[in-house]
Structures are given as C-alpha cells and as structure tokens.
C-alpha cells in the first residue's frame, strides 16, 4: 500500500488520526487512549500486516510525552510511524503492545525505566537498566541529578 491508501485505510478505523508527511515515513498522530484498538488492527489485518516493530521509543515534549512506534510490514514493505500522545505527564499510562510484538517487552521496560511511562497489562514491568531505588526518570527533560556535571 502506498501512503494515500494507508491514510484512507487508517482513517476508516480511526477517523481522528492526524497525518504528517513531512518526514521520511508517514506519521500518524493519535491520542494514547486510541492506541490499542488501532495497533491491534494494524497487526492483525492482512491489508496492513505490520509484523515488525523496529523501533519503540518515547519523546518528552516538556508538556506531554509522546510514544513513537516505527512499524514495518515484511510482506508489503510499507512503513508507518505511529505517535501516541500522552497528555498526563505525571501519571502517564498507555496500553502495552508486547502481546502483539514480543520485542516490545524489553523496549517498553526501557521506556518505563527512562521515561516513567506505565504500560497497562505489561507482564513484567520493572526497571531495566537502573536500580530499583533510582529516583526519577533520566531521559525526561526536567530530570535533575545533583551528581551530574556539565562540561
């Protein structure tokens, strides 16, 4: 499917999606609550067949967090970037996708560790890199560590 087809197909599932084509891939902006139904459809619908999640990360835009999912279909060779906006920064929550793509399990633990996004229904949500008694989430822009030195 090309970009236009992808756009119209996704709009059929989720009319509220906002598209952004400035970058290399088609970006689909959605709200965090809408993520799971859409992403489930993207994986299971053979028209999309996004079977490969090659990058999962989070961006801290100071007033909100944004989950970024890079999806690729090995069969159709099309790529989209799904961006889920998490408005609640303090108590950020989003549905897990690790029952759809197994690779998400560790990647989501990494995001939880470094950004503090809680993944609902994640089987084993623990800190991945940092120790359990670590305070704060280092990759957030407002993270302060008194031991950090600036060059």
């Amino acid at each position, binding site marked *: 499917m090309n970009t236009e087809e992808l756009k119209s197909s996704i709009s059929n599932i989720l009319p509220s999606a906002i598209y952004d084509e400035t970058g290399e891939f088609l*970006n689909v902006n959605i709200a965090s609550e809408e993520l799971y139904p859409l992403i489930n459809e993207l994986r299971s619908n053979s028209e999309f067949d996004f079977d490969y999640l090659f990058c999962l*990360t989070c961006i801290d835009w100071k007033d909100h967090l944004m989950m970024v999912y*890079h999806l690729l279909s*090995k069969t159709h060779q099309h790529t989209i*970037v799904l961006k889920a906006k998490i408005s609640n920064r303090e108590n950020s929550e989003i549905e897990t996708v690790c029952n759809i793509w*197994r*690779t998400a399990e560790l990647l989501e633990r990494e995001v939880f560790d470094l950004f503090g996004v809680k993944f609902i229904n994640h089987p084993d949500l*623990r800190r991945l890199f940092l120790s359990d008694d670590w305070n704060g989430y280092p990759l957030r822009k407002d993270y302060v560590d008194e031991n950090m030195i600036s*060059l």
Partner: protein
Amino acid sequence: MRGLIEDDYVTDEGEFVINIGPQHPSTHGVLHLKVWLDGETVKKVQPHLGFIHRSIEKMSESLSYRNFIFATSRMDYLAAHINNEACALTVEKGLQLEVPDRAKYIRTILAELTRLQSHLLWWGCTGLDLGAVTPFFYAFREREYIMEIMEETCGARLTQNFMVPGGVMYDIHPNFQKRTKEVLIQIKSKFQEYDNIMTGNVIFENRTKGVGFLSKEDAISYGVTGPTARASGVSCDIRKLIPYSAYDQVQFDEILGTGGDCYARYMIRMHEMKQSVSIIEQLIDNIPEGEFQAKTKNVIKLPKGEFYQRVETPRGELGVFIVSDGAASPYRIKYRSPGFSNLSALPLMAKGGKIGDLVAIMSTIDLVIPDIDR
C-alpha cells in the same frame, strides 16, 4: 511493582536457580542471566541488564552534531565504524547533504572491513565458548591484519571515529589499497583452515545443530535482525533493502538460512565473511577520485523534524532516530540497537536446552553487551 531483590529469590520448591554473570566467561561482558534449571535443563532465562549502562542517549542530548558521533563507538565497540556511519548518515539526511562518491566508497570499504573483523572475533569467541581455545588465536591473527589497516588509515584500532557528517575525516592512507588487497588474500587463504578446525568438526556440529531453534515468525515478532534472523529465513539485510553509502554499486548476496538453529547462524556468518571479502574486492580498485568530505557549516544545525536511519551492523539492524528542534544539539536520540532485540529472543531459544546449549546460543547470536546497555 515488586522489588527486584524480593522477586529474585522467591522460587518454587525444588527450583534450582543459578546466576550466569555478570562475571562469567561466556557472557562476553557484564550480562546477567538468571537461569532456572531442572537438572541440566534450562527451564527459564531472565536477562538483567544495566551493568554497563552509560545513558549515551542522554549524553548526546547535550553534544553537538559533530561530537555525538564519538560516543557511538563505545556502543558496539566491534562495529564502531558502522555505528559512526549510521550517525553521520542520519545527520546528512537531516541536512540533505550529498556525500562525495569517494567518501561513500571509503565508508563502505571500512564498514565491510569492520564487519569482517567483527565476524572473525565472533568466530574465535564461538570456539572459545564451546571449549576450543585454539580457534580464538587463529581468528585474532587475521583480525590483527585488519586492525593494522584501521590503525594506518583511521588512527585507532577499535574506536576509530573516522566518520564525520559529510564524509570521512581524512583521505585514505597511500598504503591503504595495497595493504587491504594483501590482507584479503591472506584471509581468503585461511577460510579452509577455519572449516577444518571448526565447521566440519563432529563435536562442533553436535553442539550446534538443532540447538536454539528460532522460527521465522518468532524472529520477526521479537525484532531479531542480522545473521540471527537471516538464519531463520527472514530477509532483513538493510544493505540490500535500503542501500546506503556505496552498497548500490556492488554485487553481493543476502544469504538466507532455513534451519534457524545455532549451526545455521554460524554458517550465515561464515558466508557473510566471504561476501564481505567480495564486496571489498569490488570496491578497492574503483575508489573514485575527488573530495573525501562535503563542505559543512562550522556549527551544524538540523532542521526541525525527525530523522531515522537504518544500517546493517555485523549483529543486525542499527537504527538512529534523531528528533531535532532546530538547535545545535539533538533534542532526543534513540539508538535501536541490534543486540537489544536479539537478546530479547534468548529466553525463547534457550528454553528446554542444556546449560551448554545456552552458551552456544549466546555465542551464536553474538551479543555485545555495551551495545545492549548503551
């Protein structure tokens, strides 16, 4: 959320839990695997990471676009060139900068030399992990020749930092082509020896055949890339799918296996070494004349936006994701490291095998721990 310590030691009656690592000969660094055993059989594996986490992503947020490249050499230290190249390519993509052909060729040759030396080291370490010490030294002998090429042209052996946005740091050394050709002849003559001492060996075959099976569907679902995925039949060579640098100029095969076991992964890498030799042979005499570096501004500023570049490292797909807000340093950098995803499939592969199989699997998926922890 339950605490790590508390969770670790609550086990059912009769479970035998051993901790492999963080200091263990076959984890190749500071990986910690918690292994549940039933006699010799592995029931469950749980990786614990973070022993060498340096938060390179956070560090890079305060470095300029010229500077952040050096830190990626410390991620996958066996493929420093390719990591650096990925960063340089991402910055070039953001700047929409056309890299001179000469720089592209030099980058490709150096990247393939890196792949060759990484695979050689992996071959030696696989032997070591399976209990044969001698192959390690044979592999290091050939690897040393490649290291000398690196040292002569780039100035360093492992962490070269030779890539800059727009090209390479220096032109190649006058001896580069001659030395590379000599080394290739040397390495090609040793492949038969490698097969004699390891590939055909009956003990080695028994240790690897049918061990650590990973199906094609699982490989994709777990995001496994590189030789590990290709052994399961997943076509995922970025050099073929989205050619970058000079890979569109060369003929080479993407080798796909079918077995999905340790032996298939081993054979894929052995064939890849031969492919790398052939790629370098095609390029080495045809390096075009011209500039080795495109002109860039003194202070590089990427336009506002998001840039993603995928490259093929010896271990799989490395993705560099730069989010720019228009400033002189990246707003957010994410490295999608191949080892991280490959490791996530280890518990699946190791389940039901013996402890010896776990070691064989770990060595054939070729884990580099700093790459996983970043």
